[in-house]
C-alpha cells in the first residue's frame, strides 16, 4: 500500500516514511493475528449439535498481559516519534541560518509568496511578491513564515511530507530542506511523478544539439516538451540522458477554505543552484 506514497524529496521526509512503514508493518501483523484468530475461532467454535460452550469468565493473567504489551508497544512507538516531530515542527530545533526565507500567505484562493529581497527584510521596496509560485534552490534550508489573510488554509507539499495550517493574524514558522540530486539520469520512468520539470536532454544521436525545455506531458515512451514557444514530442528511446534544471511540486491547500478550496494550488519550484542564480539575477538585477 505504501508504494502509493508520493516520492519523498525532503531531508526529514525519510524519518516520516520510516515511521509510516514501521506502523504499517505493526498494524499489518496485528491485523493478521487478530483476524486470523477470529476466523479460526469462528470455524472451530461454530455451533455443533450436542456440543456446549465452555463456561469461561475471563483470565486476569491474560488481561494483564495484553494491557501491558499494548501499552509498551504504544510507548515505544511514541518514543521513536517525538524526535521526528520536534525536528519538523519545533522552531527551536530548526536549522539556523536559512538560505532562503519566504513569507507564504494563504488567501481565498491563492498562495501569496513574498520574498524579502537582497536586504533580507520584509516590507521594503525590494520585496518580491509572486502568486502561487515558490522558488527555492535545491538542498537549501528554507524557512517559511506562514500566515493567512482571511480564513484558515493549510500549506501542504506531499513530496516534502510537510503540512501546516496557515492562520489569519498569526505567523507560524516552518522549514524544509530538499534532498535532490542534479546529476544527469538515464532512467526515464515516471519523470513527472518525480517532479522533473525544466530539463536538458542529451539526444542519443550525438550530432543533434541539446534540447532544453519543460515537460508538459509524459507517457511511457514519450515526452512532450515545451521548448521556447513550441511543443515537441520526443521519444524516450532517443534520449541518452536527462539533466534536471527545475523540479516542480504542487502545493495544494489542505484545509477547507471556501468554494475555491478545491483547486487552490501553488507550485514549489526547486532549482538547481545554477538555475536559481539565474532566477535571482532576473528578479533583482544587480
Amino acid at each position, binding site marked *: *500500500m505504501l508504494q502509493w*506514497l*508520493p516520492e519523498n524529496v525532503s531531508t526529514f521526509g525519510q524519518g*516520516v516514511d520510516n*515511521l*509510516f512503514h514501521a*506502523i504499517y508493518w505493526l*498494524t499489518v501483523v496485528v*491485523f493478521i493475528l487478530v483476524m486470523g484468530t*477470529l476466523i479460526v*475461532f*469462528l470455524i472451530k*467454535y*461454530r*455451533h455443533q449439535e450436542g*456440543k*456446549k*460452550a*465452555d*463456561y*469461561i*469468565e*475471563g483470565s486476569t493473567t*491474560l*488481561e494483564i498481559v*495484553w*494491557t501491558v504489551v*499494548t*501499552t509498551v508497544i*504504544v*510507548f515505544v*512507538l*511514541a518514543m521513536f*516519534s517525538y524526535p*521526528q*516531530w*520536534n525536528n*519538523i*515542527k*519545533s522552531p527551536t530545533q530548526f536549522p539556523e541560518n536559512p538560505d532562503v526565507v519566504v513569507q507564504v500567505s494563504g488567501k*481565498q484562493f491563492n498562495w501569496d509568496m513574498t520574498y524579502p529581497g537582497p536586504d533580507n527584510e520584509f516590507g521594503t521596496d525590494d520585496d518580491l511578491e509572486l502568486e502561487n509560485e515558490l522558488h527555492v534552490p535545491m538542498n537549501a534550508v528554507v524557512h517559511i513564515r506562514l500566515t493567512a489573510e*482571511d*480564513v*484558515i488554509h493549510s500549506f501542504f507539499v506531499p513530496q516534502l511530507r510537510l*503540512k*501546516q*495550517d496557515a*492562520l*489569519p493574524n*498569526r505567523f507560524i514558522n516552518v522549514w524544509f530542506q530538499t534532498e535532490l540530486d542534479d546529476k544527469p539520469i538515464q532512467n526515464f520512468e515516471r519523470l*513527472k511523478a518525480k517532479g522533473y520539470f525544466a530539463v536538458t536532454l542529451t539526444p542519443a544521436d550525438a550530432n543533434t544539439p541539446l534540447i532544453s525545455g519543460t515537460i508538459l506531458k509524459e507517457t511511457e515512451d514519450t515526452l512532450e516538451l515545451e521548448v521556447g514557444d513550441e511543443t515537441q514530442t520526443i521519444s524516450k528511446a532517443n534520449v541518452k540522458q536527462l539533466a534536471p534544471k527545475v523540479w516542480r511540486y504542487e502545493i495544494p491547500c*489542505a484545509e*477547507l*477554505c*471556501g*468554494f475555491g*478550496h*478545491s*483547486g487552490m*494550488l501553488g507550485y514549489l519550484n526547486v532549482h538547481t543552484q545554477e538555475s536559481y542564480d539565474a532566477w535571482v539575477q532576473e528578479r533583482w538585477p544587480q
Partner: protein
Amino acid sequence: MHDNEHTEHHHEESFIRKYIFSLDHKTIGKQFLIYGLIMFFVGGGLALLFRWQLAYPDQPLPIIGASQQYLDEGEVVTGADRMWERIYESDKEEWLETSMPSGVITPEFYNMLFTMHATIMVFFVVVPILVGAFGNFLIPLMIGTRDMAFPILNMLSFWLAVLAAIVMAIGFFVPGGHAAAGWTGYAPLSADPQWTGVEWGQNLWAISLLIQGFSSLVGSINYITTIINMRAPGMTFFRMPLVIWSLFIVAILLLLAFPVLSSALALLIFDRLAGTTFFSATAEGGGDPLLWQHLFWFFGHPEVYILILPGMGIASELIAVFSRKPIFGYRSMVWAMIAIAFLGWIVWGHHMFQSGMRSEMGNFFMTTTMLIAVPSAIKTFNWLGTMFRGSIRFTAPMLHGIAFVSMFVIGGLSGIYMANTPVDIFIHDTYYIVAHIHYVVFGGSLFAIFGGIIFWFPKMYGRYMNDALSKIHFWLTFIAFNCTFFPMHILGVGGHMRRISNPQQYEFLQVFEGMNIFITMSAFTLGFAQLILVFNYFWSMYKGKVAEQNPWQVNTLEWEAPTPVPHGNFGQIPTVYRGPYEYSVPGEEEDWTPQAQPEHAPATGGD
C-alpha cells in the same frame, strides 16, 4: 390501528397519546429509531450526490442531469433537458438552478453536501439511534423498571430532536444555501458570511445543533437518573449488561460534552449576528480562530466515543448471546469503557496537530491518544476471548456483531497512524481520515445498529425480521462498505485531500481517477442495499414471523417482559439473581440462565 389485547392498561389511550406524544419509553425509542432511519437516507442521499462529483467531476448527474447535446448545443433531447429548459426560462431563481445548474454540482453546493452529510449522520442518525432509540428502548427493560425516571422529559427530548431536524431541513432552502464550512464548522470560515456566501444556512445549522444539544441533555439526565435509581432488586452495577454500562457512560459524556459545543455555537451565533469577534482575529484584536477548534474538539472527541461506545455495548450483547458464553473479562470490559471515557477528555488536540500548536503539546496529545488505543485493544481481545470455545451461532445479528469487531479493528489500527504526529503531518486532512472515520462509525456503530435492530426487533414488534433479507442486506452492505471505504486508505496514502470537489485539478492525483470511480460505484451499491433493510423493517412489522417471548434465549431482563411489551413493561418487577452473561453454566441443563431465574440451590449463591 392495532387492537392491543395484551395491554394490561385499562383506559384506552388516544392515537395521539399513544403513538405521537407518547410518554412510553418504548414508543419514544421506536420514534427515535424511525427518525434516525429517515435521516440516514437523507444523509446517504447527500453522500451519493457528492460521490458522483468525485468520480465524474463537473459532469451532469445521471437521470436529473442535462444531456451532453443540451449542454453543448442547447438541443433538448431528454426529459431532464426539458426540465432544465423550463427552469432556465422561468424568471424565478430556482433552487436547482443555483445549486446544480444542468445537474452539475457547483463547488459551493459540493461543500454544502459534505457538510450536511456529516452533520446529519453524526447528530441526526448515529446519536439518535444509538442513544435515543436503543437507550430509550433498552434501559428500563434491561434494568427492570417500568419506565424512565422522567417520561415527560423523555418525550420532550424526542420532540426537541424533531424540532432540530426541522430547523436543519429549512436550512437547505434559504438563500445562500446551507452551511458549507464542514461538520467541524471551523472559524473564521463559519464565523463570517463573507467567506462562504452562506447567510442563514450556517445560522440555522448552529441553532439546530443547539436544539439538538438540549435534546441530548434532557435525554442524558433522564438516563443517568434512571440507571442510578431505578434498577430492579438485585441489579447491582456489576450485574448490568454491558450495553447499559455503555449507555450510562455515554449519558455522562453527553451531559459534560454537549454544553461545550452549545457554548461554542452560541459564540458563533454572536459572531455571525451580533458582530462579536470571538473566533476571528483581526489586527485590531478580537478573538482567535483556534478557540473554536479547541471548543469544538473538546466536545468532538468525547462525541466520537459517544458514537462508538453504545455500539461496543450492543456488539458485546450479540457476541455473548450467540457464542452462548459469558463475556470474557466482564469487569475489564467495564473498566476499559470507563478508561476510554476518561482518556477521551485529554486527547482532543490530536485533531489539531497541524493547527500550529506547540510541538510539546503535540507530544502530549500523541501520548494520550496512543494510550486510548490500549482500552480499545483490550475490548477487542475480550470479544475474541468471548468467542473462544464458544458455540457460535451465525444468526443475522451475530454476523453484524462479528463485522463490528473486525471493522473496528481496522478503524482502531488506522487511528494509530494518525495519532503518530509525524505520520499525521502527511495524512491529516486526507482521505485517510475519511477512511478511519467510516471504519469506526459505519463499520463500527452502524453495523452494531443493524445487528441491534434485528436482535431486538422481536421485542419491539413481536415479530422477527425476515432472516434471508437480513442476511442478504448484511453481505451486500459488508462487501460494498469495504469496497467503498478501504480504497480511501490508499487515496490518503497518495495524499488525496479531503473536502475537494475535483481531484482532477491536481497533477499528483490523476492516478486516482479509476479508484474514485470504483469507490463511487461501490457507494451507490452500498446506498441501494440499505433499501433492503427498510423494506425488511416495515414488511416485518406487519408480516414477519411471530416471535415468542424470548426467541434468542437471552438472559437479560428485557426478555422477561411479555411480547409485545405492555405499558409498564413487567407484570411484576423481576428480581435479579446473577450477572447478565451466565451462558453454558456447568451443571445446568439449558445453556442459559436468565438473570431473573431464582437460585435453585441457595447454597451456591453469592455473587
